[in-house]
């Protein structure tokens, strides 16, 4: 857009009858203001006459500048035509003390305040999670007493989403993890001429730890987050409230199927992950180390004790339970707006993975002390 020079907002200063006169010209509209605001702010002195008779077009921002100059410099506005006068009146009416920025609290109190709120929030979350766990147990008890209320369709649907759809990504991930363990292990063990022990490393770490842990992390990322996001947006859309008023317990209809599905799918996924991881490691041993598959399989059968599998089968459902319940809990906490759904989803994943790893550490100590080495 080209602006004809004559339209650019500007003003000229002169002295008439002993008073300083500012005569405005051009269009006092935002696109044509140019340096006018700066020039007006730099004016010195008081008691001007502001002549707007020769102003072309004017918008509220132009009117505001004239009004502000008149107010601050004790000026008088003259020559306002109809439209201009209305605008000036309008901005004068709108000139009220308005707070534009929130007042920043003092630094020290702010730090204390943040520490305090974080502590309260953390303990509230733990209590809330516990309460949620309790509420879930109660509704589980009710479902057991009235098995008709068991929502088989909802659960089967979740099986598909949590389990079947995760097969591809978990398989690929485990396969690669198996290769990485084999490759890293082989490099280290080669130094002692114990390359063949790579098979032990792959077999035992896959079944005991990595299969279930990596699966848990993947499920937390895939399903824990989606539970939080789904339930969160359902709460925002008042679907959960609507359910309650119709007499459907959200615990029963939304939370239980998700928890049940995750708890039952996790062992399957973890076992599958362990097997695929062993296959990946085996491939590497065959191609990279020249260990034939038959040797690999035989040795794997020899060195993995049954207790490793029991460990996997005990841990997997527990991890699934934790992931599902944190996801559902965070989702049900959403109150305010869409932004909160995002925050809660993040929290669900972070908390889920964190709790899974803490629990895994406890399990490691526990299984060692009961002799499941």
């Amino acid at each position, binding site marked *: *857009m080209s602006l004809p020079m004559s339209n650019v907002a500007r003003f000229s200063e002169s002295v008439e009858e002993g008073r300083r006169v500012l005569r405005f010209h051009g269009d006092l*509209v*935002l*696109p044509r*203001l140019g340096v006018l*605001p*700066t020039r007006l*702010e730099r004016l010195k002195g008081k008691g001007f006459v502001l002549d707007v008779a020769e102003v072309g077009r004017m*918008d*509220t*921002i132009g009117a*505001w*500048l004239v009004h*502000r100059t008149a107010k601050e410099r004790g000026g008088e506005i003259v020559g306002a035509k109809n*439209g201009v006068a*209305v*605008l000036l009146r*309008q*901005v004068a*009416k*709108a*000139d*009220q*003390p*308005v*707070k*534009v*920025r*929130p*007042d920043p609290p003092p630094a020290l109190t702010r730090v204390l305040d943040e520490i305090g709120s974080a502590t309260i929030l953390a303990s509230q979350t733990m209590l809330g999670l516990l309460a949620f766990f309790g509420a879930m147990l109660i509704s589980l008890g009710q479902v057991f007493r009235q098995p008709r209320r068991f929502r088989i369709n909802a659960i089967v649907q979740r099986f598909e989403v949590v389990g079947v759809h995760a097969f591809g990504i978990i398989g690929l991930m485990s396969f690669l993890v198996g290769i990485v363990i084999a490759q890293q292990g082989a490099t280290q063990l080669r130094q002692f001429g114990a390359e063949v022990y790579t098979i032990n490393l792959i077999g035992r770490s896959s079944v005991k730890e990595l299969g279930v842990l990596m699966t848990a992390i993947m499920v937390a990322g895939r399903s824990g987050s989606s539970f939080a996001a789904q339930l969160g947006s359902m709460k925002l859309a008042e679907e959960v409230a609507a359910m309650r008023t119709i007499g459907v317990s959200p615990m029963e209809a939304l939370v239980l199927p998700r928890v049940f599905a995750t708890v039952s799918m996790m062992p399957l996924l973890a076992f599958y992950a362990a097997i695929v991881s062993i296959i990946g490691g085996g491939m590497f041993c065959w191609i990279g180390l020249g260990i034939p598959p038959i040797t690999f399989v035989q040795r794997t059968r020899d060195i993995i004790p049954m207790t490793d599998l029991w460990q996997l089968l005990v841990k997997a459902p527990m991890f699934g339970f934790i992931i599902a319940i944190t996801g559902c809990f965070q989702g049900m906490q959403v109150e*305010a*707006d*869409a*932004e909160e759904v995002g925050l809660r989803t993040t929290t669900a994943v972070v908390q889920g993975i964190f709790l899974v790893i803490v629990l895994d550490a406890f399990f490691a100590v526990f299984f060692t002390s009961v002799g499941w080495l």
Partner: protein
Amino acid sequence: MSEEGEPEIVIAVHGLSNSFGEQIIHEGLDLEVKRGEILGVVGGSGTGKSVLMRSIIGLQIPDEGEVEVFGVPVLHAREAELQAVRKRWGILFQGAALFSTLTVAENVQVPLREFYPRLSERLLDEIAAYKIVMVGLDPDAGPKYPAELSGGMRKRAGIARALALDPELLFLDEPTAGLDPIGAAAFDELVVELRDQLGLTVFLITHDLDTLWTICDRVAVLSDRKVVAVGTIPELLALDHEWIQEYFRGPRGRAAEEAVEAEEAREAAAAEGEAER
């Protein structure tokens, strides 16, 4: 708005067609909006009122058709031309669409900062302040975040942002939906005031019959995938179109009409009284 000759056309839509998959929303839709008028757009649910608005402002690429805003063909314009057009319009979305991480004042300042980066902080704050008062928000609403506002206040904050640049063209998508009648009436008044002062052209999507009767200069009726009629409400009522008759002649339509008639009668009586004196 007493300009010589034909009033300038601000928005021109020709042969617009929109579809989502199998579902055809618009087919050969034509519409013109003149400078300085408040055009109401009505239509049953799902007739594509919002889609029409989104096509005009460039958020929806139509299957076919031409859209001109201020004479610029927005579908084929270069980015620089589009930016120039965007400087001249303001848009209030249905849910106000305030930026949730910014305060109300900062929301109002966003378009100013974007298009006029050389404005001083002080002037920006002052502009935000008087805009907030102008749209009827509480003076202490400035530092609040959108989540802390009620629905009506959010709409007002949204209109303050839409008005930040003193636009020539204002799009309002159901501005009075969800407002109480008092708030809705105040909103209507605000729109008329702004139009009268700034010479705004307003493209107003609404279901509010009171709004249609009291502030719209013309009303465009969307039905059967196109604009079936445009005109003042009395003109529309003279048409023999089933939906229009039902819309304006239904119990709600009549109530709004009677309210307007009563208001006019009161004004006429007052004017007569003055004349006698």
